[in-house]
């Protein structure tokens, strides 16, 4: 029976060793603030934002230990300042790119998020963390995860509905990442 008393601790240690000591990992919240406000103007409007996660302290601190991206979101308050209702979508490319116009963005980038619907002039849509989680496109999400696990840079484009002339202002916009980091 004395040997049995060592059984559980030994089994535990074997399990921890065999699985790469996952116990020491954690989920770290990092966020990138978008300029506030910014606007998407016109039928072919697109807003470009280069994101360098290395400028975020918590990301830079844990980058070498990054194992996965556990959660992500695009949040903010979207206001239609003039024009018919439509949608807002976010596209992504790895690294730094310069696509101009919604049509080129749709053709040359990968959809990350959306479309989120917005009503006609005066309509305000608040996209929170939970609401945003429903709107991710798996292909774009993978581009973002690869970028986060890579050099930490990517470019996002926010576009309205191609062909619909309106002005959508985005306030307090941000990108949320929850990274899994461990030894």
């Amino acid at each position, binding site marked *: 029976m004395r040997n*049995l008393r060592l059984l*559980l601790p030994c089994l535990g240690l074997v*399990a921890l060793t065999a699985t790469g000591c996952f*116990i020491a990992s954690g989920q770290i919240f990092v966020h990138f*603030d978008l300029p506030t406000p910014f606007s998407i103007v016109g039928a072919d409007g697109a807003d470009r934002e280069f994101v360098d996660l290395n400028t975020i302290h918590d990301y830079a601190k844990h980058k070498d230990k990054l194992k*996965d991206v*556990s959660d992500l*979101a695009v949040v903010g308050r979207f206001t239609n300042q003039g024009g018919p209702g439509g949608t807002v979508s976010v596209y992504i490319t790895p690294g730094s790119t310069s696509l101009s116009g919604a049509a080129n963005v749709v053709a040359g980038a990968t959809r990350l998020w959306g479309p989120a619907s917005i009503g006609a002039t005066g309509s305000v849509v608040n996209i929170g*963390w939970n609401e945003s989680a429903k709107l991710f496109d798996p292909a774009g999400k993978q581009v973002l995860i690869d970028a986060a696990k890579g050099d930490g840079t990517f470019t996002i484009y926010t576009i309205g509905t191609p062909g619909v002339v309106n002005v959508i202002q985005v306030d307090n916009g941000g990108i949320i990442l929850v990274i899994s980091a461990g030894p």
Partner: protein
Amino acid sequence: MRRLATGVCMAVAVAVLAVPAHAVSVGIGAFGGASFPVVQDDNGQGSVFGVRVPVSVVPLIAIEPYFGSTHGGSKDQTVAGLTFTRDGIDVTSYGANLLLKFGGPLQFYPFAGMSSSHLKRTGLDETDTAYDFGLGLGIKLPLVGLSVDGRGELDAAVDKASSDASRKWANVTLGVTYAFAKFPPVP
């Protein structure tokens, strides 16, 4: 999930059949308590409850299949001057623990086990393999077959995308168990 359940059932059956020299007791218990996420910036404190079926196969060892349900609390974070709330993660687990029991009416026992855990919230719906270990303190009540226990344990659900990462919870629970069946030793 089905494979894990089958494995647990087979392990219990083999353990029961392989140790005929001792009395085997089977019980059923319920537990509940608090669940604290460990280094999870996107998940809040919640509650946990469940049922256990302890099977004592030899005097010191019990195998305990269990079902557990954790309701995670929401978590607030501030982005660009606004506070955003993320729903907590709900976890449903089916698994088994191995308990090493010491003592008489007052029992002390380290334990460890594994489970299939389903993590769910908006934007998250995945089943992971989870490991747990902890310490328990149990008291056998004067009432026949009844005991109460308190446990502290660490649960770790291993990330499907990276086996080097996991979500972890520290659970503190109270439980009550009724041993309803005992099988006499086989001569």
